[in-house]
């Protein structure tokens, strides 16, 4: 027994004097992230009231999130008003890349943290106006684990899976892929060179985690498959404009009814 590690503490409580203090057990049963979820709900209400569709882009580092955004902005900036929140542990390089394309971008540098949370997004929203913005992309920190647990207020989760990664990623990272509304297999121009990534097998693994997410194959650099991605964006944007919200319910386990009701 010592005075350092707690091994001397008796069941009567931390007083160490042998007296038993009365205790009370409080039943709570709420999410460990319920504060984050409350801020995310406020963010989502703000997005809905402004009519902005918000998409959370997640992937491993280097899967091509920023390159996909650059290609998307180049193709759609005369058709849709786009803005971007960039999340990175350090540097403002990605926001600078996006601004160079002529759309507003705010950088969140997390100072080493491995994910964005709802409060960081709330803070970033103070730095620019969403007035008239059709689509806000939030580029999350490159990481296939932590970002999946934090609701930001987005309407849809989009996960990129580069063909330079294994096609078994959905089985290895079930939490991330289960939370995804759309999975983009990226860098497909490299499929022929690599030879060991099978998109059909990736889809088998994706369905294995009970996901109904649409899976599309794209290459931002070579302009392959981008038409289907742009159509997905246009359809979601049209739904948003028509009904006033993004109809996202898959993320964070909400039922379609609960989401439509705004809960």
């Amino acid at each position, binding site marked *: 027994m010592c005075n350092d590690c707690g091994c001397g503490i008796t069941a009567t409580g931390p007083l160490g004097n042998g007296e038993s203090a009365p205790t009370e057990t409080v039943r*709570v049963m709420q*999410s460990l992230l319920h504060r984050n979820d409350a801020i995310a709900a406020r963010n989502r209400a703000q997005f809905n009231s402004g009519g902005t569709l918000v998409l959370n882009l997640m992937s491993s580092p280097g899967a091509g999130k920023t390159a996909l955004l650059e290609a998307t902005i180049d193709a759609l900036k005369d058709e849709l008003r786009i803005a971007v929140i960039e999340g990175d542990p350090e540097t403002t390089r990605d926001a600078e890349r996006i601004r160079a394309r002529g759309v507003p971008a705010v950088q969140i540098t997390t100072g080493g943290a491995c994910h964005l949370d709802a409060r960081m997004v709330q803070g970033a929203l103070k730095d620019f106006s969403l007035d008239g913005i059709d689509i806000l992309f939030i580029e999350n920190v490159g990481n296939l684990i932590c970002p999946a647990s934090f609701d930001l207020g987005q309407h849809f989760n989009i996960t990129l899976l580069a063909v330079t990664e294994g096609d078994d990623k959905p*089985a290895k990272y*079930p939490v991330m892929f289960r939370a995804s509304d759309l999975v983009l297999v990226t860098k497909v121009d490299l499929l022929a060179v690599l030879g060991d990534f099978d998109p059909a097998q990736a889809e088998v693994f994706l369905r*294995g*985690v*009970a996901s109904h997410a649409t899976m599309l194959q794209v290459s931002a650099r070579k302009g392959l498959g981008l038409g289907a991605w742009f159509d997905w964006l246009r359809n979601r944007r049209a739904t948003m404009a028509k009904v006033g919200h993004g109809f996202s319910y898959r993320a964070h*386990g909400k039922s379609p009814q609960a989401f439509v009701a705004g809960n």
Partner: protein
Amino acid sequence: MHEISVCTALRDEVLRIAAARGARAVKSVHLRIGPLSGIDAQALALAYPIACEGTACDRAALVIDAVPVQVRCNACGALSGVQPQSLACGKCGNPETTIIGGDEMLLSSVELILEQADV
């Protein structure tokens, strides 16, 4: 390692509950964590004392109830325990299932040490 952020939120919530009840300290904190929550219970247990140091919950035991993954088959209706990376029905193999358990990350209860009653 988002478990530090989760622990910080957990500590704040536990301290809020303790303060609201006028408790002197926290004896134990009980969680329910499933493998599909994205939270690693071992990392959480490591981060917890760091987050709680110097607060009313710094001597509180952290009790983590690990919840297994369970699905209900959308076809045959059977309940089965399955692995996180393969959520198909354990009975008939149908891939269309609904998660019944295993995605929880809940603060289930807090045991508080109350002020000593005057005798």
